[in-house]
């Protein structure tokens, strides 16, 4: 298998990140459940985090001196922490919405529609 013989490069990681990102976008666009949309957001954030980690590893790329190093790791940490905060607030909003609408179908929340 030629695919398994060559060392992993930055592009491999970027492809994984791209797939995660696209899946997250698809999930956000198609799900009508508020928590389903939230899961899409988590996927998108993870796609970005994978890219950060990949860019920070010097041994994955030919131009090692341009690697992000620790900055990429710290950015990923901030992404993870903020994703947790975002999930907490979004869940609180979803619960609030459920209290008033008795559902969390996002299509039902169209009361301001003209």
């Amino acid at each position, binding site marked *: 298998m030629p695919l398994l013989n060559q060392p992993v490069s930055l592009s491999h990681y970027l492809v*994984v990140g791209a797939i995660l990102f696209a899946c997250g976008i698809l999930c956000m666009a198609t799900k009508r459940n508020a928590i389903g949309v939230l899961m899409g957001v988590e996927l998108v954030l993870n796609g970005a985090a994978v890219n950060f980690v990949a860019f920070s590893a*010097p041994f994955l790329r*030919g131009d090692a001196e341009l690697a992000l190093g620790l900055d990429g790791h710290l950015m990923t940490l901030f992404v993870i922490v903020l994703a947790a905060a975002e999930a907490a607030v979004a869940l609180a909003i979803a619960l609030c919405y459920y209290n008033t609408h008795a559902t969390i179908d996002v299509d039902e929340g169209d009361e301001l529609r003209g």
Partner: protein
Amino acid sequence: MINWHTFFFMLFATITCAFAVAVVVSANVVRMAVCLIASLAAVTGLYFLAAADFVAAMQLMIYVGGTLVLLVFGVMLTARGPFVSMKITPANWLMAGLAGGALLILLLCAAVSVDAWKTAAVAESAAGREGGHTVARIGMALLGLRVDALEQPNPALRGGMAGYLLPFEIISVHLLVVLVGAAHLARARRTKKPIEPPSGTSRAA
């Protein structure tokens, strides 16, 4: 001769992508959550392979152990029937597929566009893979001291080599605000009107 680093990368990458796709196609919210857990746990493996050990442990602890438990908890609190599921119309799929597919193609083109990104530094890879002792360095960076960048060779980058003390503090305060805000939003209160049974059609304007 199989490169074992590549082998494990491919293993984790396949799990990640397969479960990410499963999140999109499954109609049941709880199954979506399970697939998301599997996908994000496999991302942890990718982080370990990229010598980011502290980030990997954090991903496992905060994301998989914290955020996703919250999500599943939210699903259970808001479930109407025994198993929540959703119907998606083909038109919806088409629009989403167009947008997502275009984005995917764009990102894939970007991923393979730079030659230096396609060639791994083989000589350094063995050393880099072994180590990844990032904990102490990350801790010092969060306190405002970049022990890894004391001799930054590139003068263009030297200006941005300050530590991360300020972002760290901002995020701490942000988390406190989020905690108070979420507790305030989700506090128990009596609903004004009784909860109606859900209607299949959307409300009339």
